[in-house]
């Protein structure tokens, strides 16, 4: 599983370089054509075992970027103020370790100590404007030796096994999709397809738009890590997806309505191959699917997700079986539909 190595790499939207570099290094030497587009997407065409005439061109997409932060000012005291990149709840930020800039300067997100907060302050949730990053600098000049305004910041979280068959780490949305794509590219005897490792999904699926325009696929499948909220605070109908119940198929989210024929095809395949699956029981959220479906003259698009708890926070949790079932379903789809 490439996820173990993909997860800790910093790769906030607009700064996917390190992730792209890692993926490039993992690509097979033969049987692929690799190109970078101007946005920074990494497009990898895999030439299949045989080429059936008139086989549809299938695009599989996963985004390399993750939510994070950007340094917006450096205070006299050497503390750094920051802004959010992508959708993060302000309340999950305080008291976390982070890495700042290309040099991965270690830091922490701090706030005024609770002991020194007035009663009114304590009753309010933390807001990003009251938080700052501390890299141990003595002064603005001292800080400027290590960081500059505009530097990207990511959570620093190690990847670990939890429970009996789960993993915990950051950026599973969507390094899990990248990991599955890499596994598909590495497999022998696969039919042809194009893997698009996209950029800037978290700031409005910007990369997928140009990638899909370039590739003009007949069919697109987006591989995602989606929210699982099967936790005690949520009522049953709020779970969205459930860990351990297999890949989650999107009927619709805020950005795309899945192509019905594709969806039916995926359901039939899953049932035929005895792969557990679930529908994503939530119509909010955005994915690369929104951009791909509308690119050029339009593309038939489906979205398949690995359920992940606590996405958009320093640690998400996923179950291994969901990962492998997702991989299996996508593989089965390629074998049945590609050349």
């Amino acid at each position: 599983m490439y996820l173990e190595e993909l997860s800790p790499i910093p790769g906030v939207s607009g700064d996917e370089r390190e992730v792209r570099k890692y993926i490039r290094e993992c690509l097979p030497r033969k049987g692929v054509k690799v190109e970078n587009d101007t946005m920074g997407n990494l497009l990898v065409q895999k030439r299949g075992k045989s080429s059936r005439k008139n086989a549809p061109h299938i695009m599989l997409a996963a985004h390399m970027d993750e939510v994070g932060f950007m340094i917006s000012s450096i205070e006299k005291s050497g503390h750094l103020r920051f802004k959010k990149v992508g959708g993060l709840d302000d309340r999950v930020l305080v008291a976390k370790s982070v890495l700042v800039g290309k040099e991965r300067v270690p830091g922490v997100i701090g706030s005024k100590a609770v002991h020194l907060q007035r009663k009114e302050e304590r009753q309010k949730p933390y807001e990003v404007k009251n938080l700052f990053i501390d890299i141990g600098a003595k002064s603005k000049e001292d800080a400027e030796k290590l960081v500059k305004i505009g530097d990207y910041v990511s959570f620093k979280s190690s990847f670990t096994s939890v429970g009996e068959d789960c993993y915990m780490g950051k950026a599973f949305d969507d390094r899990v999709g990248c990991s599955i794509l890499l596994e598909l590219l590495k497999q022998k005897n696969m039919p042809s397809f194009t893997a698009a490792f996209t950029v800037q999904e978290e700031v409005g699926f910007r990369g997928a738009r140009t990638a899909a325009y370039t590739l003009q696929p007949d069919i697109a499948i987006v591989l995602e890590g989606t929210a699982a909220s099967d936790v005690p605070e949520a009522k049953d109908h709020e779970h969205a997806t459930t860990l351990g119940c297999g890949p989650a198929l999107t009927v619709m989210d805020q950005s795309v309505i899945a192509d019905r024929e594709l969806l039916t095809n995926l359901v039939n395949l899953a049932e035929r191959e005895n792969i557990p699956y679930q529908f994503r029981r939530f119509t909010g959220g955005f994915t690369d699917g929104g951009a791909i479906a509308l690119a050029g003259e339009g593309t038939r698009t489906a979205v398949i997700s690995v359920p992940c708890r606590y996405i958009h926070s320093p640690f998400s949790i996923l179950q291994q079986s969901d990962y492998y079932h997702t991989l299996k379903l996508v593989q089965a789809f390629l074998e049945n539909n590609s050349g």
Partner: protein
Amino acid sequence: MEIKDVLQKLSEARGVAGHENEAAELAASLFQPYVDKIKRDNLGNLVAYKKGALRSRRRPSIFLAAHLDEIGLIVTEVNENGFIRFSTIGGFDPRTLWGQAVMVHGRRDLPGVIGPKSPHLVSQEEAGKELRIEDMHIDVALSKEKAEELVRVGDTVSIHRDFMEMKNSACVTGKALDDRAGIACLIQTARQLQRMVHDFDVYFVGTVQEEVGTRGAITSTYSIMPDIGVAVDVCHGNMPGVTEEDSSELGKGPAISVGPNIHPVLGDKLKEVAKQHRISYDIEAEPGVTPTDARAIQVTREGVPCALVSIPVRYMHTSVEVIHTEDLNLAGQLLAYFIADINHEFLQEVKDYD
């Protein structure tokens, strides 16, 4: 071993209040080379004793206390899906818990994370509210059966945080620096005293249960009944939004407290020793009883003359506390010089008061 390496070990050791064994055993091994005798008392306090040089049947003693315990969580329920409900041990800001990696100390240590429900799914009204403990759970990714087998109500949970060194800086960050920084400082003092002559017997005490009401200090001071007691704890470091009055700058030495909780002769002596040895320090005005072991030490039996030396720490009671390692060295030096400097006459001054 460098002081920051000592601190790293101490920071990463687990020791939620009332469950300090791991931290205590580690601290004992770190004190070992520099002291004559080590023991644990009835409550679990770690007492490291170093004999004084004065030849006398009634050799006076000084007691230095830093607390071993850290704030943590306790399991209150394992629910029907294997999720864990919890309460706090010590003063946590509940708003700092979401997204923290934890270690649940069940039948074996189980890694997990604290979460509420997915923010993607919260309503507008919920989104703006501060999180309470009851809005969160611990997820160890186990089925109900497995969770019930491994986790029981009453198990403790510590926050898991890797210690980090800052770049181009003597600052470090990690969990439980309140008050493992104090323990590291005492180890530094013990190490320095090896090359010095001191009249007094010295008791380095790693106290337990400070975070739930300075309980270890109550019994350890009672048993040892020292002539002088010094609590070594943390104070607030400078950070945005906090005035100079309420904080001490990192890297500029320890803070020496003054106020009713501190014996004035001791406070003055500490300042004098600092000046004499060119150790920079800050003065912390404490108008009442301090929230430290000094609170308990001072009123033990007939009373113990007491002082408080503090290491500045930023973001106290979070898992990303920040301290400057030079402050540990300076505080360690200050205490060592202080101990080497005091004698019978000084003790008389303390008793005479003026």
